[in-house]
């Protein structure tokens, strides 16, 4: 019997960690109990992108969107919606600050402003069923390439589409393929970079979890174009679910003869293997990645020679990012023109971003190039929570920079983002509000790059350490007047004297925060104050005249720093105060000033 309804249960990493497998199990049990198991199918999909609202369930064909489900919700849901046909309002999504629920997914702002290419199958297929992918035109692009196109046609198509690498560098993909195709050598390799080391970024993980075949098909097409017969997906061990789904997908593709010898009877051979990386950020850099695949320590090497000429085992190698690969089948099927019609003059197509930080709709979004930062943060992201002010957004992770709220009209486009001092990067977007200290942000990212530096170059190894020490001092109120100058000097030297992108970009978070938020550095250094009231050591807690002497603060203070008679104004002994903030949080009368 055919199923009349498909219940799409999100089984992305975030929803799984909130218990979506349990929800799925109870759904299946309840549906069976009600005798609906012959007409309603429960499907596990990849990440729907709206991870903050997980576990998420979408009911098709009616497009009803349920969120934050627990196993306890399920029996009622099954009885009401699936038996009696009454969608359950209280499990639907209500936008922050509004009162009415939005029943369907397509009416929710988070979804309907997006434009899906790389994530085209998101939530529509079971990632572990190759037939589901095939049903959504999967492997049609491969057929087209095998039957109608020459290698040069494929390369021309990718070039015409204007696709640029989504791994951060933004190098034109078609051109890269052409260089590799024209490199001498009969043995060539194709690599998918799924190292994804940027803190807070999970676009690539999500693409592999929700649609692994789109990456495999993209790699097949790339292999045909450059004449490679072996491919490697380099993926970090910390992505167990993505690895499992990719393994299943490779297995299924092999069974169908879509990988292996004589693919689809057209005489082309290609096979794929997975190499698990240990999760060092620097191993995402392409030459370090190659070293790691070869079993060496993951350290960058000098370029040229570029991998396209001499890569894995010294053979011409083409490396692209997960998202880049996932775009390829769509371009082949829908045409370079259609892809190029989306976006700006020099940045075509779409980009996937992970929205995190001080934002209402944390999650994964795919947007057309040319959209403004404000549109992403407010229209899709739902703005900043708790009525706080939007202050800045960090793009490009530790290699990128902070773009201040005043530049919110900046469009998503490689050149426009670069002009701010940040970079497009691989798609991490960390939103900050007025309570975020920009010196602290710079310190956070520098701390990351400092720890991840491979140590080969002196400036990257020691220069970042010295910068970090200065930032630490500033945050502790021990900053000195020359510190800003020292930071700038070190930054310039590190940029100039580092071999790889890690070192060359490591100072960017410091430089951009200095550019746009210099006054915050100065306040820390000169006034020993943190304007965002975030750096603990620079804060003072004082009790004002509103105090009614209830004693609540004195009871929570861990160091007994607060004294005072009942019903009289209390006092904080600054020498004893460790600035934990407990008194501030507990006081009901706004009698404690934090400054």
């Amino acid at each position, binding site marked *: *019997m*055919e199923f009349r309804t498909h219940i799409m249960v999100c089984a992305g990493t975030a929803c799984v960690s909130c218990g979506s497998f349990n929800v799925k199990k109870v759904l299946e049990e309840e549906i069976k109990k009600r005798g609906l198991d012959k007409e309603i199918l429960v499907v596990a999909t990849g990440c729907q992108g709206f991870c903050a609202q997980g576990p998420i369930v979408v009911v098709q064909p009616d497009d009803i969107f349920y969120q934050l489900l627990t196993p306890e919700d399920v029996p009622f849901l099954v009885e009401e919606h699936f038996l009696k046909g009454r969608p359950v309002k209280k499990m639907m999504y209500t936008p922050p600050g509004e009162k009415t629920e939005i029943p369907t997914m397509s009416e929710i702002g988070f979804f309907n402003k997006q434009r899906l290419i790389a994530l085209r199958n998101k939530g529509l297929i079971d990632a572990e069923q190759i037939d589901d992918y095939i*049903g959504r035109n999967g492997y049609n692009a491969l*057929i087209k390439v095998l039957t109608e196109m020459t290698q040069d046609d494929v390369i021309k198509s990718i070039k015409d589409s204007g696709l640029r690498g989504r791994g951060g560098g933004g190098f034109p993909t078609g051109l890269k393929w052409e260089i590799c195709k024209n490199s001498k050598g009969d043995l060539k390799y194709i690599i998918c970079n799924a190292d994804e080391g940027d803190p807070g970024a999970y676009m690539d993980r999500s693409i592999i979890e929700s649609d692994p075949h789109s990456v495999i098909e993209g790699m097949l097409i790339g292999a045909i174009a450059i004449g490679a017969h072996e491919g490697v997906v380099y993926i970090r061990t910390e992505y167990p679910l993505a690895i499992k789904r990719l393994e299943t997908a490779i297995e299924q593709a092999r069974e169908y003869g879509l990988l292996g010898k004589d693919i689809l009877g057209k005489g082309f051979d290609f096979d794929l293997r997975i190499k698990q990386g240990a999760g060092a950020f620097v191993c995402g850099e392409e030459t370090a990645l190659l070293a790691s695949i070869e079993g060496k320590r993951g350290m960058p090497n000098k370029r040229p020679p570029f991998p396209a000429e001499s890569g894995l085992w010294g053979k011409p190698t083409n490396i692209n990012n997960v998202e880049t690969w996932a775009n390829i089948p769509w371009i082949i099927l829908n045409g370079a023109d259609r892809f190029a019609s989306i976006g700006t003059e020099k940045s075509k197509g779409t980009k996937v971003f992970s929205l995190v930080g001080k934002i209402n709709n944390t999650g994964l979004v795919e947007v057309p190039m040319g959209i403004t930062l404000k549109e992403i943060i407010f229209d899709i992201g739902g703005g900043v929570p708790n009525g706080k002010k939007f202050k800045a957004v960090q793009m490009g992770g530790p290699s990128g920079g902070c773009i201040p709220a005043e530049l919110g009209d900046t469009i998503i486009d490689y050149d426009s983002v670069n002009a701010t001092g940040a970079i497009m990067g691989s798609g991490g977007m960390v939103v900050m509000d007025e309570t975020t200290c920009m010196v602290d942000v710079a310190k956070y990212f520098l701390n990351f790059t400092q720890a991840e530096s491979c140590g080969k170059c002196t400036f990257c190894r020691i220069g970042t350490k010295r910068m970090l020490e200065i930032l630490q001092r500033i945050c502790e109120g021990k900053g000195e007047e020359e510190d800003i100058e020292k930071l700038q000097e070190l930054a310039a030297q590190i940029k100039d004297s580092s071999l790889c992108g890690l070192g060359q970009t490591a100072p960017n978070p410091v430089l951009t925060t200095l550019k746009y938020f210099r006054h915050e550095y100065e306040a820390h250094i000169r006034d020993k104050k943190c304007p965002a009231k975030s750096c603990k050591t620079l804060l003072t807690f004082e009790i004002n005249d509103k105090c009614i002497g209830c004693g609540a603060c004195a009871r929570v203070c861990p160091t007994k720093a607060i004294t005072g008679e009942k019903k009289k104004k209390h006092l904080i002994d600054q020498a004893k105060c460790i600035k934990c903030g407990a008194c501030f949080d507990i006081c009901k009368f706004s009698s404690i000033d934090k400054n």
Partner: protein
Amino acid sequence: MAKLSIADLEEIRNKVKKSTLLREGSFNAKITVHMGTCGIAAGARTIMNTLIQIIEESKRNDIIVTNSGCAGFCSKEPMVTVELKGESPVKYSSLNESKIKKIFEEHVLNGRIVAEYALAIGNEREP
């Protein structure tokens, strides 16, 4: 599983087309069975089961069936609403197995409204 040819791949695509269209929410005909407590008591489940079966037999993959709550005319249950793409929805009432088969044949497959069973044409917005 033997290695596939291009034709085999096309076959798989057709086989799963129905699922694909259903999930995409793209269809040419949508039949809604009203399944409130009253509808179920009056036999809406039989109507649903019959529909699922005859849709399958028709081999059409662009017809979907779904359920909704009580339509507010409990005495006239079981009821369905048939909606062809681009046309106003039509409500049918007091159905049984043979009536729903006729409606499917005439209206859903051939686009001719079965006036004798029709309750109303058009839709008072569903909640």
